[in-house]
């Protein structure tokens, strides 16, 4: 008996935290102390906002270090972090802390931005909502995936794994449960952080279609 796949979607309500940074030292202090939902927010916000035509800016920290403090090397280290390989947000936080501590040991905190360009830490409340879409087989899954909102796609790929800290994204888990290990593996192997959400939708549809034929 195959469990149906219930498509869900999600919304965020953004919380402002009274924590700001004007240099790498303050950024480090902030990253150490803010709730983990803030690390999630700053590493996944762009993915929701610019998912159509351009390549994604990697995360808010990298964007700020590169474009505001002009610390290109440090910004690149933040951008290059392999987010998909982290299972827990706390591990990702630890990775950011290590990069900053290593950098500060060598370079010190010698760059500051003006008041108007400070980094503002935020976090979010996630609301999970049901949709009317339910798939009971790969064919239905493909048809539904073609039309669900990108918020739904986002929820099952990113939110499920990084926010709800499930072992893998919901799609891979469902195909694994059906015994379709190849489909599951191929979806797991995608790096969703380096393609647009529309591109990701196409790739998943392609993987499921290709493997459904076998």
């Amino acid at each position: 008996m195959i469990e149906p796949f219930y498509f869900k979607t999600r919304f965020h309500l953004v919380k402002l935290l009274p924590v700001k940074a004007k240099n790498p030292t303050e950024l480090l202090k902030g990253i150490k102390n803010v709730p983990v939902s803030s690390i999630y927010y700053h590493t996944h916000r762009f993915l929701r906002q610019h998912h159509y035509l351009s390549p994604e800016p990697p995360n808010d920290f990298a964007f700020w270090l590169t474009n505001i403090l002009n610390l290109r090397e440090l910004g690149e280290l933040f951008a290059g972090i392999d987010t998909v390989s982290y299972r827990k947000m706390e591990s990702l936080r630890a990775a950011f802390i290590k990069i900053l501590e290593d950098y500060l040991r060598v370079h010190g905190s010698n760059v500051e931005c003006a008041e108007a360009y400070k980094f503002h830490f935020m976090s979010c409340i996630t609301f999970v909502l049901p949709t009317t879409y339910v798939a009971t087989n790969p064919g239905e899954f493909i048809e539904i995936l073609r039309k669900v909102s990108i918020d739904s796609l986002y929820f099952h790929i990113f939110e499920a794994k990084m926010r709800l800290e499930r072992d893998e994204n919901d799609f891979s888990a469902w195909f694994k449960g059906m015994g379709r290990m190849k489909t599951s593996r191929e979806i797991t192997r995608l790096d969703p952080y380096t393609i647009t959400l529309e591109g990701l939708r196409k790739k998943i549809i392609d993987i499921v279609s290709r493997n459904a034929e076998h």
Partner: protein
Amino acid sequence: MPNISRYIPIVGQGVIDELHFLGEKLEGRKIQNINSTAVGGGVAEILTRMIPLLRQIDVDAHWDVIRGNEKFFTITKKFHNALHGVDTEISSDEYEYFLEVNRQNAQDISAWGDVVFVHDPQPVALVEMKQRIKNKWAWRCHIDFTHPQSDIMNFLRSYIEQYDSAVFSAPAFSRHLRTPQILITPSIDPLSDKNKDLSAKKIDSELEKLGLDRSRPIVTQISRFDYLKDPMGVIKVYKSVKRYVDCQLVLAGGGATDDPEGMQVLQEVKGASVDDPDIHVFFLPPASDITINALQRASSVILQKSLKEGFGLTVAEALWKGKPVIASAVGGIPLQIAHKYSGILTYSLEGTAYYLKQLLQDPGYASKLSANGREHIKNNFLITRHIRDYLLLFLSLYYRGDVIDL
């Protein structure tokens, strides 16, 4: 006011369905908005459009207005200035009178809503009723809170911290408060006269009236004639670009005729443009929304070179019309533009001129920026998103934790 279904072709059926779903989750809860004016000003404008839309998705939304006399509003105007960082003396008698008027209104209006949603500082002290009524209270700050004077901030803090949530329009406005702070950005209405689609014929006729040449690129800044919008800087930018690209500049905006500084800025701008027939300065009367809409749609590039800005929704208006925008990285503008992704953010006249030349000469790049910009506005700055955020805010008052399964 349009029916909510008219937004479906713009944002999709799914978005409107989601609003209905969230509205149902608030079933049985009365949402009582309270502000200080029924007409005039941004808050009244937002509530006028939003309350009927909320009711269409079955939210039991209401709107009450507090009453105050001239003395009260003179005091709250002082509050407004002090919150904007202007050095303002407010006496203890004035604070006392402010509270007296709030307490009188508390008796007249009564806070009968399950959620009482108070807008701006004028009615902030109504929250004193909360202890007695035990309902949910949220305070919505619509103004720039970046550099408030400490006295007024300390006075307001004692009331804001009695609310269950405080809502601000930009991250820079957040303060050290015990109350949870929520970010809800303003929005534009795609069906308003300023933003609705216009036919090519209508755009042509509006521009013909203004005497603009449609065969050459038009660069436009829409703003009040105000030093903080830097119109003189915009003229310098245009002149440095004009040497390489044959374009026209439009500076258009309204303003109060009894504002002496505005008239002075207008005269200076006209003086600086007198020797160049390609600089067009339009002082527009109120109710010129269609003209502004047409000007934005006919432009090749839109500038917003402000030195200071509240939220700067003219940027969202331009991006929504699919126009490439170059804007200063001030106020709420960086929320609307990610540099080189959905527009260009600049910090100087030189940088603005450099990017203006680039966008005028590389329409392919400009159109990619503007396509991203329009999607960004569609996803984040339309009135439907604003309504959704308010619904989520109201719901959040009834749950704990960072993940809420509805």
